[in-house]
């Protein structure tokens, strides 16, 4: 039983990062039908910006955090203006292709400039070590990451469910033309959505850096596909669903390999795909209510 619980607890760090990424991903997926392959690069670039602020400029941690988040928003908006706005309304496939192009360009730019090696940095002292509760080990890092994520989750769900902005977002996701006739400035709301999504992606990237003590240029590629799967599993455009799915997929993957023989540990990435196909076959609209037609 303890082994089982420990697996779950250990997975909460990565699960939180996936939850944040899935939430941001599903927001832009829902509102303009964008399958955003370049989101992984927003995630990665924010982590790199924070990394540079920390190691090269020796700025304090909270400044590095701010630098990372601002970079995420700037890059996210830049990608939106350059790769998505010009082809808005051209259909999901076109948007996906331009996002793929943006992803390849940005990622390879980073690889060219900084190569694809692991860039490590020291974990801050207050995040080192563990807490022990009965027989269970809680890494301080994981507790911080989990706490931040839960707070952001609560704030996000509140915005989506209880504010004018949330109603505007969900209306536009369903039918943007009718939303416009209600006086909703869809262009402005779409930009705000991208800002929030980029903020979440940037936060996820920085937390990833904290969790693994390192960043690398290819870190976005792996995560973005999992984020896409989590958002479909959760119901497209549903922020709560995406976050729950992120945790389910992370915890599920951890439990999956925990009970497999040692040689089969390489099969871990398979788990999310199995869940993905099961959902597509039995409940293609996702576990929770989707926000699209």
């Amino acid at each position, binding site marked *: 039983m303890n082994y089982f619980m420990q697996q779950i607890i250990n997975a909460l760090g990565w699960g939180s990062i996936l939850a944040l990424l899935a939430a941001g991903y599903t927001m832009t997926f829902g509102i303009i039908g964008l399958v955003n392959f370049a989101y992984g690069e927003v995630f990665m670039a924010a982590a790199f910006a924070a990394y540079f602020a920390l190691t090269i400029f020796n700025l304090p941690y909270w400044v590095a955090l701010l630098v990372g988040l601002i970079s995420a928003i700037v890059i996210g908006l830049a990608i939106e203006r350059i790769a998505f706005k010009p082809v808005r309304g051209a259909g999901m496939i076109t948007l996906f292709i331009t996002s793929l192009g943006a992803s390849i360009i940005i990622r390879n730019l980073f690889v060219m400039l900084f190569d694809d090696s692991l860039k490590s940095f020291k974990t801050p002292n207050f995040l080192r070590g563990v807490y022990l509760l009965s027989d269970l080990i809680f890494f301080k890092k994981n507790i911080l990451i989990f706490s931040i994520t839960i707070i952001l989750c609560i704030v996000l769900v509140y915005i989506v469910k209880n504010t*004018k902005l949330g*109603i*505007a977002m*969900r*209306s536009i*996701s*369903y*039918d943007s*033309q*009718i*939303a*416009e*006739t*209600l*006086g*909703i*400035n*869809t262009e402005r709301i779409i930009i705000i959505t991208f800002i929030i999504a980029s903020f979440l992606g940037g936060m996820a990237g920085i937390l990833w850096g904290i969790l693994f003590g390192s960043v690398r240029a290819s870190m976005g590629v792996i995560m973005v596909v999992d984020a896409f799967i989590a958002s479909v599993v959760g119901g497209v*455009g549903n922020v709560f669903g995406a976050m729950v799915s992120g945790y389910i997929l992370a915890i599920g993957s951890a439990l999956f390999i925990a009970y497999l023989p040692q040689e089969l540990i390489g099969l871990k990435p398979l788990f999310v795909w199995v869940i993905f196909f099961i959902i597509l076959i039995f409940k293609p609209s996702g576990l929770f*209510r*989707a*926000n*699209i*037609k």
Partner: protein
Amino acid sequence: MSNVPILELNNVVAGYGKKEIINKISIKINQGRIVTLLGSNAVGKTTILKTILSQTCLRSGEIKYNGIDISNLATHKIARLGISYVPEGRGIFANLTTKENLLAGAYLLKSKQELENNLNRVYSIFPILKERSNQLAESLSGGEQEMLVIGRSLMSKPNLLLLDEPSLGLAPKLVELIGKILKEINNEGVCILLVEQNAKLALELADYGYLIRKGTIVLEGDTKDLIKNKKIKEIYLGII
């Protein structure tokens, strides 16, 4: 009351992309009036409404609202001027609850008190919406959804209401109710542009009417004259 018509279309030519749907349409709605656009399926009635809302390609002509040129104004800005739209085929947000749909209609309101007042007013006009306020809009029946869209359009206290086939697919009793409500709203000063295939409802309700065919106006006049008109009787045989 001002003498300027609340809405004026002058020789409007419009369509979607390269396709032209409406040709040289000129319509006038005077303050406090109900005007109807009649015609069978696919003659361009919906296109006229969408053109007013800047959701089509306007080729030529102009659209004026209270004398102001709104020909190329962004849709959300047109809504801000006090024009509400009840789309064809319900047009509810199925992913939102009944109440959330109404709140979406109140998007432009600034004060919470105004929102509360308008919500209560819509609930008193359509009590069933209050009963179903926390249900998802997609679980409402066809008639309830129509009430919801009309209710939603009233939340912003519009000056001009554009309605696209509100009676489509509804039971006669409900059509009667909607007619009554539109009359009441008009008595309070809201101008109405009503697109309808149900000629009986339209001609009973409206003061002035235009008969559309293949994207152009073939007949227009006071509805009391249109009712007697042979051409209309021919087209709508059995309904009048």
